[in-house]
């Protein structure tokens, strides 16, 4: 009689445990989906409305041969600045660059690009985010932004492009269009909890 009761209780506990486990699994899945990276958007996170959004300025092409001239081996370096503005309410870091090429994409193998995150004020040295061939950026490159950019603040990126003296005639007359994508990530992307 006592054994019978004990067995019934055991079965009940097992059923409860399975139900709880299922609920936990479903909840975990929901939370995981909610925290996947999304494009410029407002996201409801743990019941709070978070606006994670940035803008680039100026909103015009940076590099134009009519203004900058043409590239040739050893030609002067062309430097442009791009401001990344936090128009949301979550601090972020520069975390990735990717470039899409149209036209004579081979030209990208003969061009070098350096991307700096400029410091604030005179004392702060620029931080090198990327230095290498332009073509490598087609795959996308993860970078480590130096400063967290808070709400309403901005950081200036400096892009320098040049053709090394060692480049040869194979690049003569080539022309391409490049779309430069800048990605920012929340400061918590490396495992910290977002502080709102």
């Amino acid at each position: 009689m006592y054994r019978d009761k004990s067995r019934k209780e055991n079965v009940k506990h097992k059923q409860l445990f399975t139900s709880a486990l299922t609920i936990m699994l479903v909840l975990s899945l929901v939370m995981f989906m909610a925290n996947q990276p999304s494009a410029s958007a407002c996201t409801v996170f743990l019941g709070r409305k978070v606006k994670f959004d940035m803008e680039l300025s100026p909103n015009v092409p940076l590099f134009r041969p009519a203004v900058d001239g043409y590239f040739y081996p050893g030609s002067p370096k062309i430097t442009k600045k791009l401001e990344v503005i936090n128009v949301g309410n979550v601090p972020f870091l520069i975390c990735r660059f990717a470039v899409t090429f149209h036209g004579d994409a081979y030209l990208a193998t003969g061009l070098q690009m350096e991307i700096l995150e400029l410091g604030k004020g005179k004392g702060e040295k620029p931080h090198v985010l990327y230095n290498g061939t332009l073509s490598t950026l087609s795959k996308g490159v993860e970078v480590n932004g130096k400063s967290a950019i808070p709400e309403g603040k901005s950081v200036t990126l400096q892009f320098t492009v040049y053709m090394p003296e060692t480049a040869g005639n194979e690049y003569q007359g080539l022309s391409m269009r490049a779309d430069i994508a800048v990605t920012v990530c929340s400061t918590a992307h490396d495992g910290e909890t977002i502080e709102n």
Partner: protein
Amino acid sequence: METKAVAAAILLIGLVATMAGAGLYAYFSDTETSTGNIFTAGTLDLKTIDWNELTWRDGVTATWTATNMKPGDSFPFDMEFVGLSRAGTITPGSLEITCNYNVIEETPQTESDTDPYTNGHPDTMAKQMIITRFKCNGTEYLGSIVDFDEDGKKTFYDLKNSPVTGLPIPVVTDGGTFFRLSVKFSEDAGNDFQGDTFNLTMIFTLKQ
């Protein structure tokens, strides 16, 4: 009652664990793009004409022709010239002139040709082909050819091994820089070259 308490406890623990886990994995990202950036490499393009091909083109042929040369013969080539002009988007820094050559042996071989294999070592004939005029737009640059083999003569062998650099940059198409050449077949050339043809290619290079 006891069962209900156990269930509530498990649920609570599960909820807290889920939230903590979610917090640890949380991150957002946003991507914006700077579009329409144009990168263009410039061009250096040299165009040529000569006295018998009077339209600008990429290379001319048979500008200077001398037949039946014998040792001591001079060829002033008063009428012959090569015109140079530039197209392209980059302003060049200098013009360089050099040459290349080969020797064609006659067929059938002349009995008196004491070297039937000059085509295998064309430098020997190039050393007997003396340059006596090397003018760009009326200015003599013969002195700019280095006597590479120090034999006291300025020959096509010297020009091949020591290109003349720093020559005036040709103006844009339809203006032009004119290059003139005079040649002498050395008195020292012996029977080794009888019947042989010296095939000369003059090379003009624009440099940035």
